[in-house]
């Protein structure tokens, strides 16, 4: 009996530091925000409590199984409940302890974390809007110098790595074309919404996961304390590409962030200029191929054959090989360009008018009409798209 208890204590003592000191592959990743740190602490504390309860109960059971068995000649007792008041009180003790654990030991820090997590507004220095779409994230800066900066963040892992067993890069599935850039040590209020289905914006090192719900705004907050690149994923099932919409956040010092904002604004003005100029067919085709690979090929496939019936082929498609504007220059309903701009209700084909620029839409439509053996050919100019939006 005595040895048994020593054993039990030894196991508990051995397990506690294992949990506390476990390197971050066995536990939450290293926290980067006050919220994640708080979450990690609460989690560690709860894990220790539950492991102690588990080991204690397991110990009692194992002891009973070892001693109270027929093969060692143990005679069964016949009690069916506490026999007297003293025993009754002893029986109630474990439940007293449990109530204390539930509502005091765990309940109070947990409630504290809730208040911390939900306080998105106090002292917030910056507002960021995150929009989830199948299957990419769109970021928009809502105030300060960065106000108006708006871009889409797509997975860049090449299709060969996904489907053809090519050697995988270090950040396989967790790499994007446009990282979200934010300053460190600033409280950032994050507003979330979605354009199609429910998504969930999750970066484990931030301790933040919140649904992005179409038609509604949800909010959370970040305050990243260390520079670095942080990676996460969508964690609400959102269709075929659910595994392919990573979140990548680069946290940089204030100065660097300001420089980034300036550069990004210049880029935006160039982009605006590009929308008004006349593009050559080659330019459109090059740009179109890029957009197609990034956005369209997930469903319609690199060769334009699609995955019918859910994702129709573009090669030889009636829609792609049909006209886009009628005699009076109006957009034809359900034409190729209409589908790209406005999507098709009830399917995974979404409206791209809010996530792609005029130039990108013109380029990709031109590309699709001149590729995969499609015969319609022709060129769509960004200015034309702007007029038809």
């Amino acid at each position: 009996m005595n040895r048994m208890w020593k054993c039990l204590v030894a196991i508990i003592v051995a397990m506690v530091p294992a949990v506390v000191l476990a390197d971050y592959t066995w536990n939450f990743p290293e926290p980067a925000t006050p919220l994640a740190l708080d979450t990690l602490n609460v989690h560690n504390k709860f894990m220790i409590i539950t492991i102690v309860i588990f080991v204690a109960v397991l110990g009692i059971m194992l002891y009973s199984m070892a001693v109270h068995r027929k093969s060692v000649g143990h005679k069964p007792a016949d009690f069916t409940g506490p026999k007297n008041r003293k025993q009754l009180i002893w029986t109630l003790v474990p439940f007293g302890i449990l109530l204390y654990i539930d509502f005091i030991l765990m309940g109070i820090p947990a409630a504290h974390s809730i208040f911390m997590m939900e306080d998105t507004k106090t002292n917030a220095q910056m507002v960021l809007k995150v929009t989830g779409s199948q299957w990419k994230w769109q970021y928009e800066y809502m105030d300060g110098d960065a106000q108006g900066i708006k871009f889409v963040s797509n997975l860049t892992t090449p299709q060969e790595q996904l489907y053809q067993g090519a050697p995988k890069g270090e950040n396989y599935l967790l790499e994007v074309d446009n990282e979200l850039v934010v300053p460190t040590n600033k409280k950032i209020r994050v507003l979330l919404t979605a354009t199609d289905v429910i998504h969930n914006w999750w970066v484990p090192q931030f301790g933040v996961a919140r649904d992005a719900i179409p038609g509604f705004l949800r909010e959370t907050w970040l305050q990243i304390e260390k520079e670095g690149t942080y990676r996460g994923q969508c964690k609400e099932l959102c269709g075929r590409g659910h595994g392919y919409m990573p979140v990548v956040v680069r946290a940089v010092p204030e100065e660097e962030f300001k420089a980034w904002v300036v550069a990004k604004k210049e880029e935006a003005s160039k982009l605006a200029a590009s929308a008004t100029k006349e593009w050559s067919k080659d330019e459109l085709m090059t740009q179109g191929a890029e957009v197609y690979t990034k956005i369209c090929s997930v469903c319609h496939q690199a060769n334009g054959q699609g995955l019918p019936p859910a994702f129709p082929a573009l090669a030889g498609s009636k829609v792609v090989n049909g006209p886009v504007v009628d005699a009076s220059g109006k957009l034809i309903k359900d034409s190729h360009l209409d589908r790209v701009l406005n999507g098709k209700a009830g399917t995974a084909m979404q409206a791209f008018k809010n996530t792609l620029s005029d130039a990108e839409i013109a380029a990709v439509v031109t590309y699709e009409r001149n590729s995969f053996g499609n015969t319609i050919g022709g060129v769509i100019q960004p200015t034309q798209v702007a007029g038809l939006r």
Partner: protein
Amino acid sequence: MSTGSIAAHGHDDHAHHGPTGLARWLFTTNHKDIGTMYLMFSMIMFLIGGSLILSVRAELFQPGIQIIQPELFNQLIGLHALVMIFAALMPAATGFANWMLPLQIGAPDMALPRLNNWGFWLLPPAGTILLMPLVLYLFGIGTGGADAGWTLYPPLSAQSGWGIDFAILALHLMGISSVMGSINVVVTILNMRAPGMTMMKLPMFAWGWLMTAFLLIATIPVLAGAITMLLTDRHFGTHFFDAAGGGDPILFQHLFWFFGHPEVYILLLPIWGFIPHILETFARKPMYGYKAQVWSLVCIAALSVIVWAHHFFTAGMPVQALIYFMYSTMSISVPLAVLFFCWIATIWRGSMTFETPMLFALGFIILFGIGGLTGLVLADVAADAQYHHSYFVVAHFHYTLFAGGIMGVMAGVYYWLPKMTGHMYSEKLGKAHFWLTVISFNLTFMPQFFVGLAGMPRRIPDYALQFTEFNVISTIGAFALGLSQLIFVYNVVTTWRGKGEKATDGVWEGSKGLEWQLSSPPPHHSWDPQPVIK
């Protein structure tokens, strides 16, 4: 009610006159036949559900897409859950109820025998309807099975193909079947107990099932409402869950989980009912704390309908709601702890032997304990942001629903199989099945706790490289777990066909309760006249 009224028609209750062959099973109103069909249906669907998920695990063995494209992957995960919950676990519990409740409470049959037949025969078509789109898809026809997860959240489920419509129809049928089964159980328990069997003398299994039945009757209609609203959103232009038309996608989550959380207890309460019977039998010591267990079952059933929103804390809700749902969820741990306490106190200072049902029952307590304790930490809202929809949650609910559900059912099967068939199963194979199951189960799901904490979301067909090792282990464990179940199937089938030695009436040395007073197997019509309980 009186003994006389039931015995009055006084035919030869041991003779079995009626149709034979297929017609016997198609038209039977006998509780034992129907129970057998439920259990067989459950076992077949368990194997189907298992093979669905093994193909998923095979895909997840290595990063990259090798054998299953993402759109098929999304169908497999959702259908695995729907099959396991609605077509494997729930029918297993109903099968036990049919077989054992009348025997245990000394009733000649279930109260509503024709309803009983209908309740069962809705299930095979429902299972077919659920799986047919997937099968057609594999042959290149149609848009595939339900691919929005078993929770069918709109707007995703609103944009999917007709697999969703089939799933809705199947859920309706299975829901109707469950509600009919539940009404039958309630009526049987309340009206057909043997004379002298007061409610506080009911077998614990009957109490567990009574609570399940009330929960089913209360919550299945809510699910039915929610999925009907989804159906009209999809096809008839309503906007219940479409924000663009003034609806709210989160409304569906509230309705779904108002059913979905009690569903967990619907699956587990019958098992919590018969586990004490197994423990008292093999510890040769009377059940500890009967009244405390009964009131805990009642408490758990009541609490289970007021905690639903903890399934979507990350969807965002007011602080007050977060606090309320966190504390109410935590409070379930109290009645559950009472049950654990009583189970362990039942074996304490007993005289235990470790036949297969006892091994499964003890394994159930330990592993389900892990499920329960991780459930306690999941109630913590802030940490839940990390756990939620990660593999941590997947591991958690498999510790509750596989270790707590399936392993509990297996304990029940081994416990009652000799009574049902009149033959002993192979103890050697049973023990091999137990140890292989326990080891491979932990090999499968323990790594999922860690990969979840490390940040792997659930329901993704492909994953980042840092999750590889855990997934490799998990897949190996899953295949071992799947193959081990074939031992179980072989053992049950050979026993059913009468291979083992003859079982005595009592079967087990320590068995107590009315069912053990009948012969093994019991006569086709039993307890007519009813026994009298002193």
